[in-house]
Every structure is written in structure tokens, then in C-alpha cells.
């Protein structure tokens, strides 16, 4: 069965079972491995992508429900890796192991798109679905403020 969807502006026709979570369609079938598995139960946020601009945990979204929609992954956030969030992440050397950071960045971008100048409380609320075992949370907060252009 072919599921038709757009990923990062490119049309894909994926020959997959409709119940396959979008995460595995993106990784194993479309070959985009920037989006990560870490829990499979929408508990950790590593798999966060945007579907029609909304942040979603792709590990629990069936690929069939993304049919006809526009999916944005970390690879599609910017052509040159220079989205302000990505730039801020590098300026503050946010990542340690880096594994959760695709999901962190996608969640942060979604936050800033709906709330351009979030408070610390806004950030905590929006970002607490994204786990980081390396403990980069204080730098993530600072980087979001930096990307927002606010004083930290």
C-alpha cells in the first residue's frame, strides 16, 4: 500500500503498512535518520517532527495519518543549518552527546513559532516532553532565549 506524503518539501510515495509509525517510515524507508528513536511511547520527544507545522511525536503517529501532509524533519529545518535555533544551539555549545537534540530543536522551533518571546515557565512547559540524559537543559533554556532575541 502506498502512502503519499511530503517530507521536507519532497513528495514521497512509501510502500508501507498504514500502521507503521511515521518515525520508522522517515528513518528506515525514506532514509532520513536525523529523527531518533528513544522510547517508542511519546515519553521522551527524541522523535519530534512537524506535521503541517505542528510538533508531533512521530513514534506514535501512524504514517497513514500523515498521508497528504507536509512533514518537516530536522534535516528540512534549513538548507544551510542556519535556522536561528540551530545557530543558538551551536553558539552556546548546547549538545553533549547530541542524540536528543534533533527532537529538542524541533520542539524549540515549534515553541518559538507560536510564542516568539517565551518565559522560562513557557519554555519548561513546552520542552518538558523532551528528555536529555546528558543534562543540557540549562543550556537549552538559554539557547531558546538567545534564538528569541531576548536577554537571558
Amino acid at each position, binding site marked *: 500500500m502506498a502512502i503519499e506524503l511530503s517530507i521536507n518539501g519532497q513528495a514521497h510515495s512509501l510502500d508501507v503498512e498504514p500502521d507503521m509509525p511515521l518515525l*520508522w517510515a522517515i528513518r528506515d524507508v525514506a532514509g532520513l535518520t536525523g529523527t531518533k528513536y528513544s522510547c517508542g511511547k511519546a*515519553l521522551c520527544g527524541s522523535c519530534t517532527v512537524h506535521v503541517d507545522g505542528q510538533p508531533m511525536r512521530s513514534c506514535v503517529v501512524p504514517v497513514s495519518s500523515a498521508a497528504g501532509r507536509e512533514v518537516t524533519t530536522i*534535516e528540512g529545518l534549513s538548507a544551510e*543549518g542556519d535556522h536561528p535555533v540551530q545557530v543558538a544551539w551551536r553558539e552556546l555549545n548546547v*549538545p553533549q552527546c547530541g*542524540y536528543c537534540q534533533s527532537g529538542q530543536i524541533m520542539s524549540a522551533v515549534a515553541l518559538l513559532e507560536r510564542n516568539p518571546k517565551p518565559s522560562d515557565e513557557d519554555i519548561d512547559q513546552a520542552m518538558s516532553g523532551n528528555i536529555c540524559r*546528558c543534562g543540557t*537543559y540549562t543550556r537549552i533554556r538559554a539557547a531558546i532565549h538567545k534564538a528569541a532575541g531576548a536577554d537571558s
Partner: protein
Amino acid sequence: MKQTGLAGGGLVFALTFTTACQKQAGPPGIAPATASVSPNVYVNIKNNGMVEIVCHRSEMGQGIRTSLPQIIADELEADWDRIELIQALGDTKYASQNTDGSTSIRNQFDILRNAGATARETLIAAAAASWGVPATECVARKHEVHHEASGRSAGYGELVEAATDIETPEQAEFKGRDDWQYIGKPFDTIDGFDFSTGKAVYAADVMLPGMLYASIERCPAFGGTVKAFDDAGARAVAGVVDVIKMPEPTNPPVFNIQGGVAVLATNTWSALKGRSALEIDWDRGRNGEHESVAYRKALEDAAGTSGELRLDRGDVDAAIADAASTHEGVYYAPYIAQAPMEPPAAVAQIGEDGSCDVWACTQDPQTAQANVAGLLGIDKTNVRIHVTLLGGGFGRKSKCDFINEAAWLAKETGKPVQVSWTREDDIRHGYFHAVSAQYFKASLDADGRATGLLHRSCFPSIMSTFNPAAASPAPMELELGATDNPYGFENLRLEAANATAHLRIGWLRSVCNVFHAFGVSGFVDELAHRAGTDPKDYLLQMLLPARKINPADDGAQYGNYGHPLEVHPIDTGRMAAVVEKVAEMSGWGRELPDGRGLGIAVHRSFASYVAAVAEVGVDARGKLVVHELWTAIDAGTTINPDRVKSQMEGAGIFGMSIALHGELTTKDGAVVEGNFDSYPVVRMSETPSAINVHIMDSDAPPGGVGEPGVPPVAPAIVNAYFAATGKRIRELPLRNAGLT
């Protein structure tokens, strides 16, 4: 600094693994090299002027891929913008690649400096020879050799041909620290661009043509076996290609495959679906009745009764008998899991010539190489372990069981195989940090001052993973925070009580220091309060006057993390200094809002000293809030202060997870918890408003950085909670006291 990928293995994947940081520095329009020379295994000079530096240690977020080249490039006098970083295969031609125990810098600083220095001397000798001048008249400076007297100079690339005829010295003189250009500087992380763009490659990102995805159902109880299984349902799932029974578990487990049934499919989802359709009849085996509540009681009883003597100073029994009063308590900490964000994963492929390539998130590629060679019955020179970036390690990925699984399945199927562990696999089938019970009893004089301490520690030993007869804490484990008790007790006795392991025991970031620091630092805080003394003042009283401790003086065996005590002493003066620093940083003694408290703890581990202060409070719902953390670290000479700071920030969060949440329980031999709902870890919403870090200025030899930040965090929090509420907690996690 550019980075390129593999040395060897010219497969399709090599293209994706080449992480060319086009956005980072590098001269534009540089021509490809046509020749190169390797003065040693860590450095390769190319005739286009680029210098390859080999990183032989695994990157798991500690920043070794940045700090290692900082050291080599500094001694080499190489231009940072003309360095390419190569990740080494597992190969015994390098120094130890076992990236564990916070050893990269403290054990190999001189090896790395020597790699840069001997390469530098080789280039100087090459220039001198080609100019017919003494090498002593030449100097290396920023990617060039100069002969000042004649004004001649040559770039490193130009010297490649001449350098080929030079014999590299074994040893060369190191730069003085005043001449360091890169060492000590907060360089940006090498992999920053890739981390922020999804280009960073981890083990499960490796895709080879024809590769099968494998997911393995393992016995819920450790050491159990498959009695029978029905794979009809699994094979009926679209995408499932095969179902294969894994080799039986071994006792001891070491890093061997521990049985189970593998489902192989054309994609991960089909493998997972197929696996959930398996029907397996298990023999739960020798550990099938392991139940953690009863086991806790057994450990606490053993700790409270008697143990084998491991350290004896003065006469603790007499001190207790003569004491005006005594103080005692039992400290308990449960099994916990490393739970790195990337669960274990490995890809293996057997070539037509029978050689094997593995891509894996391994902390120890040399051991993985030897394991795979043994498993496949081939020479280890035919096993290439390609080390991917690790999505966290914390000790889990030193153990190559998951690599053995992938290699075995690759041989069985004749296809490339990717084995990936689910989160449940990671939580339920790990090498767990040992559950522990510690008994403390102190003798107090009339003023409430402690005159003696008995510490009895009881936990299943890591040695059980290597020796089925191991049933008591090993000296090496007690040395992690028990034997090296730094406090000035006139009478001190350490005992170890026996415990048999029923789960696979391993090591987790800072190992037994986690529970020993919790117990010792918690109990010492209790003694401070018994003495009516401010806890910070009490620590200083018990640590000063400054002295160097040798546990052998008290009859104890002590390996000092592999260092002679002359090089890395147990220096109570350095401990007191970080206590004083963190007290100053946190405003210790200031007036606090109602319901808040400050707690302090200090711990030496892996040859570094860390003191932590936590400010905690209790919110309207009665939940504990960690408002702020301060830490001061003395790690001697450090390489990249921003990476040290980030490790301490991360250790603060990691230690908070241990304090607040981490607990694995068992029933019928099986670990009950399975994912981040039942095994929670700290999230952004619980993160303090600030984690303040101070790195002590020091010329001392480098101490560890990756682990030492962890041990003092949980006791600082527990001590702060006591300060805030008057309630003493002696067991982790605090969730069980209703505080989360």
C-alpha cells in the same frame, strides 16, 4: 577544524559517515593530498597541508573528540583550521580505547602530548635535514618549521617527503604550560554543526544494502532460557524475514549473548511487530525468583550484622563501648539503569572474505574486536569495529553484548544485520548499577563529636558478571568512596558484607561512588547535626588540617584509580578547598526564604574533588524542588573548560535523577520497570534555575571529569531537605518518600 570519517571500509555508508563540516574553518580550495606521512598512529601529515589527528576514544558527550585534538594539535604546533579529525577503528596499536572510568585525559594526557610532540620533532628534523642545518636551530610554530638564522621556513605539507626518511623519536619534550595555545581553552565542540542539523551518525543510523533489522526478545529473568517458542505469528507479519533462536546464556555472562529469540525483518517496525507476536515459553532459571523487596531486607540484615574487615584504624569497638552516645543508620539505594538516550545498537556485516565490519556505539572497541573475533572464530585483524558517535554511554556501552548479537546474526543469516534495543530492552536487560545497603554507627563524645565510625557496605558485586562465585564486594569497588574515607575519625572500621547477584551487575557513571557518597556524606551530615555544628564547618573540621591519606596505613587495599598516591594523593586540603569554594559560591549561611534549605556534600573520585551545594524547598503540594545547584571541581589540569563545565552541569541533572527518581524493582526474576513512565528521569520542568560551576585553578596532574560530578549531588539534596524540614532520608529515590 574539519572532521572526516572512517579509516577503512569503503562501503556506501562511508559517504554518510563523512561528516564534512563545511561551515567550520578550513582554507578554501585546498587540493587533495597525493602523499602523507604518519610519524605515529595518532598523526598523519598530508602534503596538501592538512593534518589528520586520530581520536581513538569514544565520544559520548564528554567532548573527547574536541579536547583530544586540542592536546595533540597544541604540541604539534598545528593550525587548528587545518586539522581533520579521524575516528579510530578498534585497534590495539592505540593506547587503551576503553572510554570508561574518566580516564581519557588523566591516564593518557602524556600519551597524547607525546603524539603531538614526537610528530613535531619529526617535522623539525625533516626541515633541518633538507636545509642541512642542526635541528636545534629550528623551531615549529603554527604549521611551519622555521630556521631563524637563515630566515628559511617550510609548511608542514611541504615537509612530508623529507619526513618520510626521519625516524620518529619514542619520546619528545613537552611544551611548558605557559606556551599552551589550545590546551585550557573553551573551543567549540567539533561535532556541533552535525548535532544541530541531524547529520550526526549513531549506530542505528547505519544502513547497508540488503541489511536486515533485528529485534530480540530476551528472557525476563537474567540467565533464563527458551524452553519452546512458536514463531508462526511473527513470521506472518509483513516484512518479517526470519526468526532465529539466539545462543544460550552463559554463566558468568561477561559480554556474551544472553539468549532469546531474534526476529529479523526489512525494517524496524516489522521486526518489533513480529517480536510482539512471538509466543515463548521461558525457563526463568536460577534467578527466576529474585524479588527486590525481600532482597533489600536481606542486604540490610547483612549490612547490620557483620562483614569482612577491609580497613581498621584505632579500635572502633572500644570507642563505641566508651562512647557517651552513639548514632547509627542504614542507607539504602536501589538498582538503577544507565538509560542513555540512545539504546544499544550495532550493525554487523560479514564480507565475502569472512572478515567482519561492525558499526557500533561502543565505549570499548578493542574489547569488542576481540569478542567478535572469538565469536566468529577469525583473527582480530579481520574484525573492523567502526565507532559511531554514542548517544550517551554512562558505562552501559563498555559492554559489547549487543555487538556480539549483531555479529552472530550477521554470520547466521549471511546478511548485514542491525540489532537495535528498545527502551524496554535497555531498562530490563542491562548491566545494572548494584542495589546496596550500608550500615553506619558512630561513637560520640560528651560534646556530640564523633570519635569513631563503623561503615559496613553490602551489595552484589560487579565481579559476579565475570566470576559466578563472586559473592562479596571487591576491594576495587570499596575503593570507590568507602576505603578512601577522608574524614578525621580517630577510630574507623570498614567492613564488606556478602551478597549474591541475581541481576547482571555493571557500572554506571561513577559506579560505587554513587551509593558510598550518598551514605558517607549523608551520615557525616547527620553527625554534624548531632554535634550541633554547621555542616559546612563540620566538613572542614573533619578534613583539616590538610593531610594526605594512605588507606594502607589502616591495613586497607587501595588502588587509587590506578595512580600512585605520590601523583594523585588523597589530599584533604584540596577537599576542604572545594568545600570552601562552593560554600562561598552558594552564599552558605545566608538567610533563606521559609521552607528552604541548603545542603552540602563533598566527594573525591577518579582523582578529582567535587563539592556540591543544593538549595531545595518544598512546594505547595509537598513536592521537593531543587531550586539551584552549585558545584566546585578540582580536576587538576583541565583541557577544555567549557566541556568540564558542561560535564558538571550534566552531572547535576544526572545526580538529581538518582536522588529523585531512579529505581528498578524486580519480581519473579524480572525487572518491573520498562520505560520513562515507570523509570522517570529529570525533565526540563524540574531543572534548577541555575547550575553554577567553578573549576578550581590547578597545575596538578589531570583528574577525571566525566564522573566525579555525580556522587555529591544526591547527598547534597538530601542534606538540604533535612535543613529545610528536619526530616532525614536515608533511602533513594526520594519519590518513595512522596517528594516527587
